């Protein structure tokens, strides 16, 4: 199991060093919350703040979503677990942040827990990677030897359902949605302001939190994240009515990987899938 204490100390040591050397203006990591089980995303700007940095099995926040809050060109150090590092790569690909402005503190973590249900987070709800895909400093020992289980295995059960059953499942789920938009705000890739759903000209969907409007909002969001979603599972954890959004995003990510041969946020030089094309994409993807 990951040694959280060791990572926390390394995090503090590195944050202190970076802030003292003035290499970065802010360190995005995890801070103490109102109790042990509830840490908070935390932006340490001064040496004094380093003391309240913390790392335990509940620090599931994807800090990449805070990168866009700082003006272009600010030097930022960011704590990045496996999925977060993919989010950073995707944001660099989309030029929302520059790679040279970032000091990525990679955290190989295994055995993180979902705060609400206390289950151990595994490849069922996330991309199934344990080691950060990209990092400048590594805060812990790389994790090796784990049996590689494809994150898409959890889909088999839903893909096997026939379409009526699956429709009933999704309609029930999306009817629960109260349009609090926490999924959109929790997602590092959803940085559009204003979002398409907030607009009246054109009016894409009804405002009422009932099936037609909810369906339109969620289906369009799945499309906007196609080839971009890095499967960190933050949207499902933020949802107050527990809609399993990670399932649908995973399915779209799986299809995109099969059709376009590239997974989101894995390589810096890739271009996001839907703003790119290959002449030899086969027409079979349309059948």
């Amino acid at each position: 199991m990951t040694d959280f204490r060791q990572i926390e100390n390394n995090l503090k040591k590195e944050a202190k060093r970076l802030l003292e050397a003035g290499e970065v203006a802010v360190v995005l990591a995890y801070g103490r919350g109102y109790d042990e089980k509830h840490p908070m995303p935390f932006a340490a700007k001064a040496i004094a703040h380093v003391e309240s940095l913390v790392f335990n099995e509940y620090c599931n926040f994807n800090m990449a979503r805070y990168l866009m809050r700082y003006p272009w060109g600010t030097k930022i150090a960011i704590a990045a677990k496996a999925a977060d590092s993919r989010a950073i790569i995707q944001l660099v690909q989309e030029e929302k942040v520059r790679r040279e402005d970032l000091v990525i503190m990679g955290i190989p973590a295994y055995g993180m827990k979902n705060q609400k249900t206390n289950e151990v987070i595994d490849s069922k709800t996330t991309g199934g990677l344990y080691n950060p895909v990209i990092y400048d400093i590594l805060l812990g020992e790389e994790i090796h030897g784990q049996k590689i289980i494809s994150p898409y295995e959890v889909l088999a059960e839903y893909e096997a359902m026939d379409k009526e059953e699956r429709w009933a499942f999704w309609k029930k789920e999306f009817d629960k949605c109260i349009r609090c938009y926490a999924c959109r705000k929790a997602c590092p890739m959803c940085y559009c302001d204003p979002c398409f759903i907030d607009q009246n000209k054109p009016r894409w969907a009804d405002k009422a939190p009932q099936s037609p409007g909810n369906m339109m909002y969620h289906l369009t969001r799945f499309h906007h994240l196609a080839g971009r979603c890095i499967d960190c599972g933050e949207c499902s954890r933020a949802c107050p009515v527990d809609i399993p959004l990670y399932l649908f995003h995973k399915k779209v990510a799986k299809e995109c990987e099969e059709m376009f041969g590239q997974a989101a946020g894995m390589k810096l030089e890739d271009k996001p899938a839907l703003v790119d094309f290959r002449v030899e994409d086969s027409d079979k993807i349309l059948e």
Partner: protein
Amino acid sequence: MSQAVTPYLEMSQAIIEAGGEALKKCYQCGTCSGTCPWTPITHFNIRKLVRYGQLGFDGIEDFMWGCSTCKFCVDRCPRGVEIIDIVTAIRNVYSGGGMLPQSLRAFVGSLSARGNPWSGDQAKRNDWAKEKYPLYNKEMEYLFWTCCTVCYDPRNTRLARATAELLNQAALSWGIPSTDVNCCGESVRKVGDLELFERLKNVNLNYFQTNSVAKMITVSPHCLVTFKKEYGADYNIAHFSEVLASLIKEEKLKPKKDFGGIKVTYHDPCYLGRHSGIYDAPRDVIKSLPGVELVEMERNREQSMCCGGGGGGLWMEKLKGERLSDLRVEEALATGANVLATACPYCITMFEDSIRTLNVDDKIVVKDVTELFLESMEINIDEPVGDVCEIV
């Protein structure tokens, strides 16, 4: 009988299904056969083998065993054809029909019965260690994976002991696998027996999982490539020459003895060089030895010539004059070196044979880079030792 032949496409389809997908890409330009070290000295012709595979002509059997999977042709092929996969697929399709040559039957039989190609007793796998070295357990950092050749082949057990000594000298936390592991299966896979390879692989995978192995060190490049490419799990595995080179750089191990100005030439084993891209680590180790001058052969690094041991070559009988290891020893002698250093148990075995048959053992001797370094630390591991294990 009539010279006309008709393409038998079911055969090429079977080859493609067995992993020879790249068969379709070859446009017979002849680069591979021009590059292959075997073409000038034997009747084996890799281009003809692929051609027969493409059209399913019969008569393929008599020259499909010549390839020693040294990957020189794959690196040069202008169409990027994975030729080794084609050779493995052809051998899988044909060996299924009992076409295995006589010299390989014993080797495959021993593997399926005893889990190692040397007909050594499974229980005697760790006898080379004589209980001096610990078995691996969860707390240890490294698993020192002992390849069957260094366990059973008398000459190569010395390599295992040398490595073990150096690991202790460097005070690393390591252990050797228990006797319920078996061969990594590289050679049997290249010989085409994929089913036997799967069986051997699962035994090892099971051992790795139960002991939650994370980091491994091996002395055999063949095990290195197989664990990395065919075992489907991301193991952090390194060849001992890399570990040794970094230990020297960090000054954890220092050579003492001055060799007095001897000339050493280094032979790049195909599975360490071309297959894994490790060229400099063994050279750094040699350069760190006082009183040693490293001389390079004309065919070195990416252009290195195969010793002939790969792809089951170690166990095949080769006619005199048709042995690559002989040519390679002559090339080493041409550089005026008195030590031929290398970093693979297969190469050591082949070169030992060649030096004996060319009876030049007074002019040149073959040593593993590890043995050389151990010698420089003046540690003697050659107690008078009887025959380690009876070859049944």
